C-alpha cells in the first residue's frame, strides 16, 4: 500500500475566519487509487478542509500548499479544481429538481457547438455514464422524480463526465437507506478499481471501516493522525478514541445540581418529515425532564435532535403523527409556538441568525419580542419598561454593548446568543430547550453561557441541551439521551457516561434495552 504513489498532498493548511482558526497546520496525504476517509466531530474542520481543496475557498484565503499529481495547484474556484480532476459532491446535492437527469449531468458543461446543445449526443453519453454508476433510469426523468439514492448516483455520473481523478464525497450516505448506502459504497469501490481515488467524509463509522483504506482524523482544526486500516487494525473504537480523545478541561463552572421531581414528559413522540411523508424524523421517542435537571441530547448531525426539539416546541417542525406531552401531571397540546410559550416552554434555536433573531431589530426590541404582552397595556408596548427590562438583562448576562439600542446584527455571536437567551428568559419558561447553545461562540462566552444555564436549572427550571460537542454535554448535563436516526438509543446519567459510550450509542441503533 505504502508503495503506491501519492495523488494528493495538502501541506500545513491553515484557514482562519475572522476571530476563529478553523484549520491549523492540517496535512493530508491521499495515495493514488485509495479510499481515504476523514473523520472528526461536527465542527472539527473536515468540510472546511474539503472546501479549501475544491477551491470554494480560493488560493490566497488560506495558508499552505496543495500538491496534486506532483504539481502544486492553486485553485481560483470550483471550476478550476474540477478542470484539474478534483470533484466534490456536497452533502446537499447540487442538482436541479426540475431538470432531467441528462440536463443535470451536463449542466455547465453542455456538449454542442456555438451555444447550441447537441441533445442527441448528450443523451447518448448520459446513458453511458448512467450505466457506469449502475443506473438504468430513463435519462429524461426529472431529478425530483427519482429517489435520493439515485440522485446521489447521478451526482457521481456528473463527476465522471468531468473525467474525475479524485472524488470528494461529503456525507454521501447521510440521507440514504441501508440498501442505497450499500450500493453507493460498492460503486465507490468500483471506481477505486478503475483508479479513481476518493475522499469520503462520513459519520457512519461502520461504513468507513468497511470501505476505507486509510483514515485521517481531524480534531479541533488539527490533523491528529492518519491510520492505515489494514496495517493498523483499525476498528470503530479506535476511530472514536481519535475523534474525541481530548481531555475535559475545566471549561465548566462548578455546579451542584438540585434535582427535583419529573415535571415534563414526552411520550411516544412520532413526527413525519414535512415533505416526505414516508420518512419519520422522530420514531416513537419518549423522554422526561426533572425540575432543576439539565438533560443533554447527543446525536450526530441529521440524527433528528433539532427535529425532536422543534416538534415538541409547538409542532414547529414536521407533521405531528402521535405522542403526548405531559407537564406537571397534565397532558398539554401545543399546536404552535405561541401555545408552547404560553405553557412555559422556550426553544433557543440552533441557528440564531435564521431562526432566533430578527437581525434588523435592536437589542431591546429583540429581548422582549417573545412575550410583548408582558410589558403592554391594551396592546400598546411600554417602551420605558422595555428599555429597563432589556437593560437589566444586559447587565445580568453581561451583554457587551454600550446600550440596548444597538442593532443585534452588530453584536458578536456570543453576545447575540446572550440576547437570545435573554429573550427566552423573559418569557419565564419552566422548560428551556437549548439547541447548540454555544455554536460559533468563543470559549469565554461559552463559560458564561454554561453559568446561565446552570443558574436557570437551580431556579427549578428544566433544561434540555442539544449539542454536537460531547465534552460540552458531559460537562454541563446531569443526564444524557442519545439519538440515532430519529430514535432515542440510550439514557445515561452523565456521571456514568464517557465519550466512547456516547459515540457508540450515537452511531448505531439501540443496543442496550433501556427501561
Amino acid at each position, binding site marked *: 500500500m505504502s508503495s503506491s504513489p501519492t495523488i494528493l498532498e495538502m501541506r500545513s493548511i491553515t484557514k482562519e475566519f475572522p476571530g*476563529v482558526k478553523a484549520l491549523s497546520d492540517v496535512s493530508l496525504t491521499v495515495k493514488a487509487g485509495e479510499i481515504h476517509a476523514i473523520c472528526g466531530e461536527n465542527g472539527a474542520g473536515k468540510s*472546511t478542509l474539503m*472546501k479549501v481543496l475544491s477551491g470554494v*475557498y480560493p488560493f490566497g484565503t488560506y495558508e499552505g500548499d496543495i500538491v496534486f499529481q506532483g504539481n502544486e495547484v492553486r485553485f481560483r474556484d470550483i471550476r478550476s479544481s474540477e478542470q484539474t480532476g478534483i470533484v466534490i459532491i456536497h452533502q446537499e446535492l447540487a442538482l436541479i429538481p426540475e431538470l432531467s437527469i441528462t440536463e443535470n449531468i451536463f449542466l455547465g458543461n453542455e456538449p454542442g457547438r456555438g451555444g447550441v446543445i447537441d441533445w442527441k449526443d448528450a443523451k447518448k453519453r448520459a446513458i453511458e455514464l448512467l450505466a457506469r454508476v449502475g443506473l438504468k433510469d430513463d435519462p429524461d426523468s426529472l431529478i425530483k422524480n427519482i429517489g435520493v439514492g439515485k440522485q446521489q448516483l447521478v451526482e457521481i455520473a456528473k463527476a465522471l463526465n468531468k473525467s474525475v481523478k479524485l472524488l470528494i464525497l461529503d456525507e454521501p450516505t447521510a440521507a440514504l437507506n441501508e440498501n442505497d448506502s450499500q450500493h453507493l459504497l460498492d460503486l465507490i469501490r468500483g471506481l477505486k478499481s478503475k483508479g479513481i481515488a476518493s475522499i469520503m467524509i462520513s459519520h457512519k463509522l461502520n461504513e468507513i471501516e468497511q470501505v476505507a483504506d486509510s483514515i485521517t482524523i481531524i480534531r479541533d482544526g488539527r490533523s491528529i493522525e492518519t491510520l492505515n486500516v489494514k496495517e493498523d487494525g483499525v476498528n470503530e473504537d479506535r476511530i472514536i478514541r481519535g475523534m474525541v480523545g481530548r481531555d475535559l478541561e475545566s471549561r465548566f463552572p462548578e455546579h451542584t445540581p438540585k434535582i427535583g421531581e419529573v415535571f415534563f414528559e414526552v411520550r411516544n413522540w412520532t413526527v413525519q418529515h414535512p415533505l416526505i411523508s414516508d420518512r419519520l424524523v422522530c420514531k416513537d421517542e419518549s423522554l422526561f425532564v426533572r425540575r432543576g435537571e439539565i438533560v443533554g441530547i447527543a446525536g450526530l448531525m441529521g440524527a433528528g435532535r433539532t427535529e425532536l426539539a422543534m416538534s415538541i416546541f409547538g409542532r414547529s417542525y414536521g407533521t405531528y403523527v402521535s405522542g403526548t406531552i405531559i407537564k406537571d401531571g397534565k397532558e398539554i397540546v401545543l399546536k404552535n409556538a*405561541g401555545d408552547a410559550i404560553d405553557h412555559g416552554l422556550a426553544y433557543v434555536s440552533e441557528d440564531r441568525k435564521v431562526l432566533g433573531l430578527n437581525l434588523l431589530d435592536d437589542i431591546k426590541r429583540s429581548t422582549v419580542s417573545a412575550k410583548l404582552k408582558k410589558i403592554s397595556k391594551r396592546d400598546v408596548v411600554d*417602551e420605558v419598561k422595555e428599555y429597563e427590562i432589556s437593560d437589566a438583562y444586559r447587565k445580568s448576562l453581561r451583554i457587551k454593548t454600550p446600550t440596548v*439600542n444597538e442593532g443585534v446584527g452588530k453584536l458578536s455571536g456570543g453576545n447575540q446568543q446572550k440576547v437570545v437567551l435573554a*429573550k427566552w428568559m423573559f418569557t419565564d419558561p419552566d422548560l428551556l430547550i437549548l439547541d447548540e447553545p454555544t*455554536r460559533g461562540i468563543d470559549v469565554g462566552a461559552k463559560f458564561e453561557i454554561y453559568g446561565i444555564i446552570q443558574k436557570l436549572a437551580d431556579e427549578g427550571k428544566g433544561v434540555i441541551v442539544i449539542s454536537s460537542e460531547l465534552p460540552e454535554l458531559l460537562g454541563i448535563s446531569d443526564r444524557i439521551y442519545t439519538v440515532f436516526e430519529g430514535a432515542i438509543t440510550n439514557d445515561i446519567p452523565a456521571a456514568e457516561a464517557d465519550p466512547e459510550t456516547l459515540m457508540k450509542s450515537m452511531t448505531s441503533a439501540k443496543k442496550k434495552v433501556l427501561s
Partner: protein
Amino acid sequence: MTQITEAPKKSGGIRDLGKMFGSGSGAKQLGILGALVVIIIIFQVWTGGLTLTPGNLIALVSQYSYILILAIGMVMVIIAGHIDLSVGSVAAFSGIVVASLMQNFNVPWPVAIVLGLVVGALIGAWQGFWVAYVGVPAFIVTLAGMLIFRGGNQFIGNANSVAVPKEFQFIGAGYLPEIGPDTGYNNLTLLLGIVVIVAIVWREFSARRTQAEMGSDMAPLWVSLIKIAGLVIVTGYATYLFSSGRVGTSFPISGIILGVLVLLYSFVTRNTIFGRHIYAVGGNSHAAELSGVNSRRVNFFVMMNMSVLASLAGMIFVARSTASGPQDGLNWELDAIAAVFIGGAAVAGGVGTVTGSIIGGLVMAVLNNGLQLVGVPSDRVQIIKGLVLLAAVAIDVWNKSQGRPSITGFLTRKRTGGAVAVETPPVPRVQDDTNALEPTVGASETNRPSSVTPNN
C-alpha cells in the same frame, strides 16, 4: 466596538447638530428631508415664487393626500415583505360603489362612507386570505385584484362616471370653515397651526425626558432648541400660507384626514404589539413564528388594512373630482410604492417607517407639482420622476453597501430606535460549515453611534 460606538459622545460642538435627527455625522442625515427642502426651494425660485403660494400649497395637499394615504398602508405591506398592486383599482371600485349607493339608492353620505370602508375591508379580507392563508404571493394576488376591481368598477358604472352629491364632496374638496372674528386669515387653520406648534414643543421635551429616564445618549439642549425653532418656523410659515388663501379655501379636510392617519399609524407601527409583529414578520418570519407571532394573521391584517385605506383614498378622490369614473386611481399603486421606497423602506421587508414614506411621497408630489407649474410636459415629468426614484433608492443602497447609515434611516428613525437596523453593514458571508465564526461585523466602519437617539 465599544470604543468606536462611543466615539460620537466625545465629539461635542457642532457635531451634536447631527443628533437633531437621530444621530450620526456629516451632512447625510439631512437626507431625504433635505432633498425635499432643496426641491421646494428650487421650484420656488424656478417658478418665480409660485410654489409656496397659498393657492398652490392648498392644491398640492388636496391633490396628493390620497396618494399619501395609500403610502401609509403600502409601507406596512412592504415592511411585512409584500406588495400591493391593486390599490388603484380598489380605490376606483370603492369609489364607484359609494357613488352608486348615493346616486341610485339615496344612501345618506355618512352611511355611504362607512359602507365604502366596509367594501374595502371585504376586498382586503379577500386578498389577505389568499396571501396569508393560501400562500399565494401578494404580487400575484394583487395583480389579479388590480384586474378584478378595475373591471368591477367599469361593470358597476357601465364604464361611465357617476356623480356624487355636494355634501359628500366635503371630504375631498372641503376646507376648514370660516368661523369667529374676521382676522383676514382662516381662524381654524391658525388654531390648528398653534396646536401643532405646541405639540412639537411638548413632544421634543417629553422625548428628552424619556431619554433621560432610559439613560440614552442625549443631544444637548441647544440642539433640541434649534430643532424646535426650525420646526416651529416651518409650521408657522405653513400655517400662514394655508390660512391666507383665497376666501373659502384653507387647510383641506383631506389634509386633516391624512394628518390624523399619519399620527395614528405612526403610533400603531411603532408602539403596539401588532406594529412590532409587522416588523418581526418582515424581518425574519421564521424567527417571528418561533417567538409565537401568528404571521398569517399579521399578513392578513396588513393586506386588509391596505385595502381599507385604498377605499378611503378612493372616496376622497371621488369627492374631490365630484364623480367616480372608470379611470380613477390609475397608476396610484406605482406612486404609493415609489413614495415608500424613496422613504427608505427595503424591498426585502422588515424596514420602513410611516413618516419616511410620507416624506418620500411629498418629494414626488412637490416634484410633480413644480414641474407642472413650470410647464414641463407630462411625458417628461414621468421620465424625471422615474429617474428620481431610481436615484433615491440607488443612493440608499449604495450607502448601505458602504456600511454607512441609510440617509432615510436617520430621518425616519424613531425616538427609541425602531426599525433602524437597516444600517447594519453587510455581514461578511459566513461560509464555514462549522459556523464557527464570530461575525464581528465590520464594526470599525460603522459610524452609527452608541445610541439611537431621538428624533421626531
